[in-house]
């Protein structure tokens, strides 16, 4: 046994009284549940134990495969459905892109690739560790896609096919183009600088004219690719800026590059004087690299979020003339009637045309709660149908769904620039006018004073004062802090998040899903009658087999499948509970409304923790047991609250949950400011009150009910497991779902602000100090280029310190 009390596969604490041993690499290991056991077994049976030696992060807990889920996979083999995401490479050779859920470290990538490659008929598997996407090609005569998806599930991962969006293809191409530009610039800069050293040395130590000429011509040729190819984006941006009348820093950049190049070419042809090819290439390399880093950080955050959005199924059952047919969701049109079976995700937005059921809208609300749906009620794509079959009249698919709207929101969010960076752009823009005017004045002055030195002086002024360091001061700091945070599972979705975090004075939590897990957990079993605890649990779990209600999961995860009793005539009573026959006797499990027994009888004395749900198990004659289920505090919540309080930050809870429950959790956390039973508008009002008092508020939430509050807060954080809407309206997403990350993000915000201030002071100070010297002719262009590069380098290096926060 591994003996440390945690599951060998997923690393979660072992529940008491369970025993799922498995021999892995010659040692008996304890596993926490049937699901993990199955996954570990699949890994061992396929000779992939090595995964356990090399993994650097724990995978998610294994889930048992449910036959219904497996039969759903079979639908992916349908040619109509494959149409939307499968490419046929050659006759019978097909290729699809999949999103893999549950990749936590590089060993996961290896595990999936190895295992899938062993399957007969699989031609190639490529898993991208950076964005968790896989490309698989297979021979359809030998293997079906459903089999591949099933094998991935056996390993404990979840694969969704998706169609590689046009946008994504564009992104990939843009990235390749950027790398090509940087590579060309880097190669040419290295060569030109090498020659520049020779030329500078020659200028002071003596070099014959022919050699100097040769070196100048070679430098010219080497600079050409930079001037004509890699620097083009600067010209384009500068041209656009000049046309729109708002100068940006690409204008002086372009002017400097073009004048420096033209001047150097002239000098080269004359065969006398200084050339500035080294300055040009170095300049371009610096600018391109910083822009690439910034862009990278931004795109990474989009990709990670997009992966979370692929929840809508790719196919659905359409009812036409009384017959069911499987169709791709893309082919659905408004007015179609689709059938959503219990346990399935609903494929399109619509309204209920027939049937009564309840639906789990956790993707919007963050709370796994059954929402009853009847005739005419709206349902949204991606929500899970729980109890009974629903016929749904489609009102929106694809781009017109609620989910698609969220994606658009995200796109907009990502396009935004941080406020300080905007400010820097504005300053740099104004600075540009001043700079251009000044250069003109200096040029005129030297024209009158000493026309021979005019090119040298103008270049020195342009290069030395280039607001390059000024305009990368903010992006460099953001990129460094952003990529550092992302590595720890903290995703910045808005530009301004970091700088606002630095000023936060109050942290407000929504209780469910943030401080707590947001899922009910079985706390206590109280047997009343003839059956003991375990027998009651078996009964309850057996009855819950048929239910998709979130509470059912809390029962089922306590027991393994083979311990369950067979249940006949299972019935679901939405909003009440379940009933069924076990070995000829009728049992019910549900709230007080379900059974006549609980209604009639006095509620048995039971000390129920605040906020807990109680479910009763009855047979035909008596009350058998009560089960207490409650949401649980995340284990790291207490430490986080303490840290925040010792840092002098105000901490409060605003929750939609009942007052008693909120009080219970607040007391355990030592939070004195809390309010329960809050509607979204109440929360917003409370938030506004805090802000009116001069507070800068960070809101941590996860549900759709939190969305307006998240938007109203100065800066908002959402849990990665929370709802789409919450994630979309928040500035920061905690993919790791670890609460201490909130504190880490706050610290990173403060550090970023400090670094950015230092950068601004340095860059501005350098520009203003160097300008008079350059104008008076004390700075030769090579020194100007060096100064410019060094000042940028200082800014970038200072920003890179943020990686160690």
């Amino acid at each position, binding site marked *: 046994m591994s003996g440390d009390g945690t599951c060998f596969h997923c690393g979660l604490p072992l529940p008491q009284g369970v025993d799922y041993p498995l021999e892995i690499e010659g040692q008996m290991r304890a596993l926490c549940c049937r699901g993990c056991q199955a996954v570990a077994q699949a890994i061992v049976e396929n000779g992939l134990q090595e995964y356990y030696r090399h993994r650097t992060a724990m995978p998610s807990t294994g889930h048992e495969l449910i036959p219904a889920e497996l039969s759903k996979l079979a639908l992916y083999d349908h040619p109509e459905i494959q149409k939307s995401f499968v490419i046929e490479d050659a006759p019978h050779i097909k290729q699809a892109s999949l999103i893999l859920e549950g990749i936590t470290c*590089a060993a996961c990538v290896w595990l999936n690739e190895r295992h899938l490659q062993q399957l007969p008929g699989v031609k190639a598997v490529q898993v991208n560790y950076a964005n968790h996407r896989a490309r698989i090609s297979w021979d359809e005569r030998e293997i079906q896609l459903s089999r591949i998806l099933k094998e991935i599930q056996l390993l404990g991962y979840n694969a969704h096919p998706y169609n590689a969006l046009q946008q994504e293809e564009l992104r990939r191409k843009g990235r390749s183009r950027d790398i090509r530009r940087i590579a060309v610039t880097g190669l040419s800069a290295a060569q030109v600088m090498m020659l520049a050293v020779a030329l500078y040395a020659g200028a002071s130590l003596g070099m014959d004219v022919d050699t100097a000429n*040769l070196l100048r011509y*070679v430098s010219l040729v080497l600079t050409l690719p930079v001037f004509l190819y890699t620097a083009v984006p600067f010209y384009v941006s500068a041209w656009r800026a000049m046309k729109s009348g708002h100068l940006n820093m690409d204008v002086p950049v372009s002017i400097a590059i073009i004048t420096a190049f033209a001047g150097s070419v002239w000098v080269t042809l004359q065969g006398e004087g200084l050339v500035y090819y080294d300055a040009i290439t170095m300049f371009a390399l610096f600018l391109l690299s910083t822009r690439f880093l910034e862009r990278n950080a931004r795109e990474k955050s989009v990709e990670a979020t997009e992966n979370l959005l692929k929840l809508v199924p790719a196919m659905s059952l359409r009812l036409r003339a009384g017959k069911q047919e499987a169709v791709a969701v893309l082919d659905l049109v408004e007015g179609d009637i689709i059938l959503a079976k219990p346990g399935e995700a609903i494929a399109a937005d619509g309204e209920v045309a027939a049937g009564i059921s309840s639906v789990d809208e956790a993707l919007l609300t963050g709370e796994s709660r059954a929402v009853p749906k009847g005739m005419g009620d709206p349902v949204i794509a991606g929500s899970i149908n729980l109890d009974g079959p629903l016929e749904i009249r489609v009102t929106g698919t694809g781009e017109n769904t609620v989910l698609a709207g969220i994606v658009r929101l995200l796109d907009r969010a990502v396009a935004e620039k941080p406020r300080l960076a905007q400010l820097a752009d504005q300053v740099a823009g104004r600075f540009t006018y001043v700079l251009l005017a000044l250069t003109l004045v200096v040029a005129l002055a030297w024209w009158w004073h000493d026309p021979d030195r005019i090119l040298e002086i103008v270049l020195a002024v342009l290069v030395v004062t280039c607001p390059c360091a000024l305009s990368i001061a903010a992006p460099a700091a953001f990129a460094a802090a952003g990529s550092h945070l992302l590595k720890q599972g903290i995703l910045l979705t808005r530009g301004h998040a970091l700088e606002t975090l630095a000023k936060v004075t109050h942290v407000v939590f929504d209780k469910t899903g943030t401080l707590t897990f947001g899922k009910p957990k079985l706390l206590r079993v109280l047997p009343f009658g003839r059956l003991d605890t375990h027998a009651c649990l078996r009964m309850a779990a057996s009855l819950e087999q048929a239910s998709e209600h979130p509470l059912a999961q809390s029962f089922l995860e306590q027991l393994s499948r083979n311990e369950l009793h067979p249940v006949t005539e299972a019935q679901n009573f939405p909003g009440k509970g379940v009933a069924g026959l076990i070995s000829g006797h009728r049992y019910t499990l549900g709230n007080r409304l379900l059974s006549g027994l609980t209604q009639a009888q006095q509620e048995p004395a039971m000390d129920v923790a605040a906020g807990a749900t109680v479910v009763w198990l009855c047979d035909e004659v008596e009350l058998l047991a009560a089960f207490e289920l409650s949401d649980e505090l995340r284990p790291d919540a207490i430490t986080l609250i303490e840290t925040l309080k010792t840092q002098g930050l105000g901490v409060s809870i605003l929750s939609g949950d009942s007052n008693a429950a909120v009080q219970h959790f607040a007391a355990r956390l030592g939070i004195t400011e809390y309010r329960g039973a809050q509607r979204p508008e109440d929360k917003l009002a409370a938030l506004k009150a805090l802000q009116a008092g001069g507070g800068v508020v960070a809101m941590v939430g996860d549900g759709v009910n939190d969305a307006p509050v998240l938007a109203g807060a100065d800066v908002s954080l959402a849990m990665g497991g929370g709802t789409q809407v919450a994630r979309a309206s928040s500035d920061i997403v905690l993919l790791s779902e670890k609460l201490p990350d909130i504190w880490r993000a706050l610290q990173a915000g403060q550090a970023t602000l400090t670094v950015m201030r230092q950068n601004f002071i340095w860059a501005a100070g350098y520009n203003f100090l160097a300008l008079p010297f350059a104008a008076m002719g004390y700075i030769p262009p090579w020194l100007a280029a060096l100064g410019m590069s060094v000042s940028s380098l200082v800014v970038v290096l200072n920003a890179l310190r943020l990686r160690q926060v």
Partner: protein
Amino acid sequence: MNSILIFLLGLAGFMVIIAGIGIFWAIRSGQFEDMAGPAQRILMDDDDPRIPRRALKKDDK
């Protein structure tokens, strides 16, 4: 003196072109798309004889 210089400069130019072609090829073949995975992947032993290859054929009914 100049002839050796020309030779060396030519050599440098040649190497730049080789390096450029190499990088363009690497970009085209997608080596810059996943920067973290391959570094980790090399640590895994793919040639362990205990790994059954294509072994699943048997239970593929």
